[in-house]
């Protein structure tokens, strides 16, 4: 019996170690190669331990692309989307969870149904709309369509429904209006869900590629994912430079992720397990 347990222990941990190695290695390789000069990187056989490390690739990216501007663009739109969507979703979710008005459940069903509309049908007409208003190549083109996301409304409504009514009843007796109730009672109670939504929308906007690709025209307006594609085509064949660009773009994502992973994971689990 004991032997079996030891074998299981060894195999499990060994398997995990191998998988960790396989998963982490691409990132390691990207980082290492980003410090290698472009002409050494294509040498055959590959040089594993370069005797000549260089920051040249990073300098090329900083001088050759507006990467700092891309970073600022990404931060701005991600924070804007996360903040604004949380705000409007809180109100919409409260209305759907607590208020009584004609058509409430119908509206909720429509919103829920919209979750199943494949995005592929919407992107072209949305593009035409954005173009029509002259929002192409502006932050508005990224921010405004993202505020139509239904996931947040759904998430918050489910959460709000679970909040004990007594708290609101008590506040109503004290004469509190709707705004007070929302901000002084609902929001504090639902804080974990709200943060989770904020984080999910932030990451979603931060990593979005397809939509910014089609609505952003000039290089200075790109977000980081679109910038990565631009670096790939600009420095094709110059793999060291490409890796430097990739690392510079991946790093903030990884840092942000490590900070918010608790909430990000909560959000994902909610969608899969309770959704």
């Amino acid at each position, binding site marked *: 019996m004991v032997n079996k347990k030891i074998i299981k222990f060894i195999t499990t941990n060994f398997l995990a170690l191998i998988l960790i190695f396989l998963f982490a290695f691409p990132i390691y390789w990207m980082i290492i190669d980003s410090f290698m000069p472009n002409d050494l990187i294509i040498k*055959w056989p590959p040089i594993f331990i370069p005797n000549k490390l260089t920051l040249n690739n990073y300098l090329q990216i900083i001088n050759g692309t507006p990467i700092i501007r891309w970073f600022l663009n990404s931060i701005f739109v991600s924070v804007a989307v996360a903040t604004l969507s949380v705000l409007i979703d809180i109100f919409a979710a409260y209305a759907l969870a607590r208020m009584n008005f004609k058509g409430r459940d119908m509206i909720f069903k429509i919103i829920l149904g919209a979750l199943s509309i494949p995005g592929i049908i919407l992107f072209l*007409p949305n593009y035409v709309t954005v173009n029509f208003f002259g929002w192409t190549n502006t932050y508005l083109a990224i921010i405004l369509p993202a505020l139509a996301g239904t996931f947040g409304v759904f998430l918050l409504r489910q959460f709000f429904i679970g909040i004990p009514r007594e708290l609101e009843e008590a506040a109503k007796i004290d004469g509190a209006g709707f705004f007070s109730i929302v901000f002084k009672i609902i929001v504090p109670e639902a804080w974990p869900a709200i943060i989770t939504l904020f984080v999910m929308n932030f990451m979603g906007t931060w990593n979005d590629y397809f939509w910014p690709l089609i609505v952003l025209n000039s290089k200075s307006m790109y977000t980081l994912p679109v910038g990565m594609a631009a670096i790939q085509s600009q420095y094709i064949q110059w793999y060291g430079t490409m890796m430097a660009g990739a690392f510079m773009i991946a790093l903030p*994502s990884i840092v942000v992720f490590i900070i918010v992973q608790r909430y990000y994971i909560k959000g994902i*689990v909610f969608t899969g397990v309770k959704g």
Partner: protein
Amino acid sequence: MRKNSIWGYLFLLPFLSFFGLFVIFPLIRGVYMSMTKWGLYGGNLGFIGLKNYQLLFDPNFFMSRQFWESMWATTQFMIFSVPLFIFSGLGLAILINNQFLKIKTVSRMIFFVPVALSAPVIAVIWMWLLEYNSGLINFLLTFIGIGRIPWLTQQPWAWISIVITTLWWTVGWNMIIFLGGLQNIPTELYDAAKVDGANSWNTFIHITLPGLRNVIFFITIFQIIASFNLFAQPQLMTGGGPGRSTLPVMLYIYQTAFNFSLPYMGISSAMSVISGGIILIIIMILFLTLGKEAY
């Protein structure tokens, strides 16, 4: 009751405005566009009824062939990836959940970190690893005597490359959801099974899998939708090649719509409607057949 009404609508108004403008309105407009000739530069060039749809089902029209080829490419990717990603996610979750594992948190984080990256970044990283002449993987292959493989320029390697890249990127997502699901299964069930003398395989089949029913169902739906949306990896890694074999429908519609010298936006809309409709039907069928049990 009436006072409530106004407030209700007011609270919903901001969200509903965006929802209406960017979800409901484009749904209608997309269908309208699919029945027009529409140019990127020229705009609306006129209503043509169902002509776009007719052409897309006409085997002599070259875009029809290319469209259905792209649908087949997407289908192939879905076949290769959906079961694989689900089982891999489950496998990783079971590994992490295993009582013998000492390095739980580290493992979980490392498997999940690629999810934090955007599609172009992972495409670039793997493009370099799989590069024919100087990439690391081909070096290892020549080192052990197999020789270089044209990962991005020939089949079946092109699909394998895209699948592996996407697996590395998103399996963590499935893993996390499965972990949540696993932890939801009451431990009493496992204790009871042990008492009855069940081995791990039986426990897995009769307790774990049924307990994960909901989760498996929803991950399947998510995976189908995510695989259907395949875009960045083939765009940046294989260019849709060799030939058109890795050109998925999302990429094909993008290429046709944004071709400025020809008024193809209308027919691209028709393609969107057809492909979107097909995936919608598939999901509906899944919901109606298996979803009933899940609920």
